[in-house]
């Protein structure tokens, strides 16, 4: 068992019959994830890659004991898909969908949190845990073949793959990789996700991948300085060259009103005693030093 997912995680895929949904449903199964059902309103009774499809999450949960959901539903209906999953009684919801209106996300995430449900995303690659061969997300399976003791927590998708790949190449194994998402409002934010993976006794070191926008990195640095995380952390921040006022691809990656720039985040980590890598390729080197 890892902190967020494990052998008892039984997954329903919302939006299972769509192009992305069915493609990744198959990849997740290949990885080893227990996918028990798919949901697409109006397609109940069909099946995708051998997995039964239902019209509602409630039915999928009732029939298959699903306790987690991965959402590939288009942006306009995705927030409602979160509400449906929460009311159906799952414990973990991973929202892959990009471009969800921020007010919709705000309401859905607050509702989920008020009911004790963990949301990862939206606009995220999801979560993958090699030791338990479980992936709720879209990460390339090939990179996450080596189980180990390093946790990766990230605001970016591809950069998570890049740095995970560098870590594996350098001989590290991955315990868990969590992409928290690039939107301004996310379910589990960078700080909370880091605290969460730090709880796992199997995790020996944590790599935090931040980017411009918001202050999750600064809040995390402050907690680290206060001693809340008793494990080595290495950080990398993308967007040193990002100009203020421009959105850098992610809705949440924007330097606004003089705050959220990479420099402030890097300084906060350094002041807290967290080494910050200059490039993604420096991450394994810094981690090796700390873990010696």
């Amino acid at each position: 068992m890892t902190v967020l997912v494990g052998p008892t995680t039984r997954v329903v895929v919302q939006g299972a019959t769509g192009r992305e949904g069915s493609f990744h449903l198959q990849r997740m199964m290949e990885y080893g994830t227990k996918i028990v059902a798919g949901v697409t309103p109006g397609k109940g009774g069909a099946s995708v890659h051998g997995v039964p499809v239902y019209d509602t999450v409630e039915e999928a949960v009732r029939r298959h004991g699903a306790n987690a959901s991965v959402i590939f539903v288009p942006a306009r209906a995705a927030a409602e898909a979160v509400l449906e999953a929460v009311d159906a009684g799952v414990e973990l919801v991973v929202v892959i969908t990009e471009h969800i209106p921020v007010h919709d996300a705000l309401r859905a995430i607050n509702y989920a949190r008020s009911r004790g449900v963990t949301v990862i995303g939206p606009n995220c690659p999801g979560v993958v845990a090699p030791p338990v061969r479980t992936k709720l997300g879209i990460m390339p399976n090939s990179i996450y073949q080596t189980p180990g003791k390093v946790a990766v927590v990230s605001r970016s998708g591809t950069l998570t793959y890049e740095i995970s790949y560098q870590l594996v190449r350098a001989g590290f194994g991955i315990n868990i990789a969590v992409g928290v998402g690039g939107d301004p409002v996310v379910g589990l934010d960078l700080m909370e996700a880091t605290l969460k993976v730090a709880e796992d006794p199997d995790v020996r070191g944590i790599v935090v991948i931040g980017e411009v926008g918001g202050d999750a990195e600064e809040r995390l640095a402050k907690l680290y300085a206060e001693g809340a995380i008793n494990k080595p952390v290495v950080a990398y921040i993308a967007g040193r060259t990002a100009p203020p006022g421009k959105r850098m691809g992610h809705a949440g990656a924007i330097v606004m009103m003089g705050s959220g720039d990479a420099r402030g985040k890097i300084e906060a980590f350094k002041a807290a005693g967290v080494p910050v890598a200059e490039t993604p390729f420096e991450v394994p080197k810094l981690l090796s030093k700390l873990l010696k």
Partner: protein
Amino acid sequence: MKLHEYEAKELLAKYGVEIPPGRLALTPDEALKAAKEIGTPVVLKAQVVVAGRGKAGGIKVAKTPEEAYELSKAMFGMNIKGLVVRKIYVTKYVEAEREMYLSLIIDRASRRYLFLASPVGGVDIEEIAKASPEKIKRVYVDPAVGLREFHIRQIGLWLGFRPGTRQWQQISSIVQAMYRVMVEYDAELVESNPLALTKDGDVIPLDARVIVDDNALYRHSDLEKALEEDPRDVTEFEAYAKKIGFHYVELDGDIGIIGNGAGLTMSTMDLVYHFGGRPANFLDIGGGASREVVREAVKVLLKHPRVRVVFINIFGGITRADEVALGVKDALAETGATKKIVVRLKGTNEEQGRAILSEVGVPLFENAEEAAQRAVELARV
């Protein structure tokens, strides 16, 4: 989507806020006519969606309609932080007794709406926020609970007003209107700076800013239409890129950057900078880009006048390396460009991608650091 000041004020007015009388002018003649109708003195305000217009000469007071004509003539076509002035908002000149600040945003950390209120406002609010943060009151509103009387009371009292007065009515109505614009128009920011207490004792927003969530524009067809007619703060390349379907941000260097995924693309820019080069842009082809999207992305940079070297850094997951390679090949064939290209390809279908690119003689790197160094070297030649 950043709304112009006049659009933001119209939204507030729609929800019951009193705003100074104003007209939009597209020519000096219209400015003259507006000044006559409103009655001088008037303020001419350049409608460009950047902060700091005033300091850049985009706000002028005219004492006569003729002066409004002359001043507007100089203001039209002016370049303010890269944006050209095409619209001028002519409003009644209102003298402020005191300038305040009031804004509403979404607070990421607490996942609530957040009012920021300061009894002192005006142009230097960022400095005020840094130098005396204690002046800024934070009032959080839970979306499930909504805006309540007590929230308004906290804001009104902090700004220095007493319940039961005319100003109290006015500030209440402004707070409520800002909240309604926020929620009903899917805004990310609703701001009034300065919010003025006038010499006549009225509370009036002298300026207003609204930024609407692009992802929710489909719910606001009026704004979608306005954006189509006036793309606001995007450069020619940015507008084109948006049409094709990738994220593009203009920068001022000479190395064109293409990556997949926002984080990796930003990291690629940083890597170029780290080795002493200067990125010309940020271009994220997104997840699972097709051959066509890649072709268009590469073409944009090959045609870009400032770009000397194109550096493509792909870590394929959903994105397939062979599609990327085909896109690069197509772009080269179509433009016949002589610009240098450096490619780093990793991930899904890497081998096929490698074969396609070596056929057309594009140097391929496995390691992004080496690729970045090479791109920087080539830009210096």
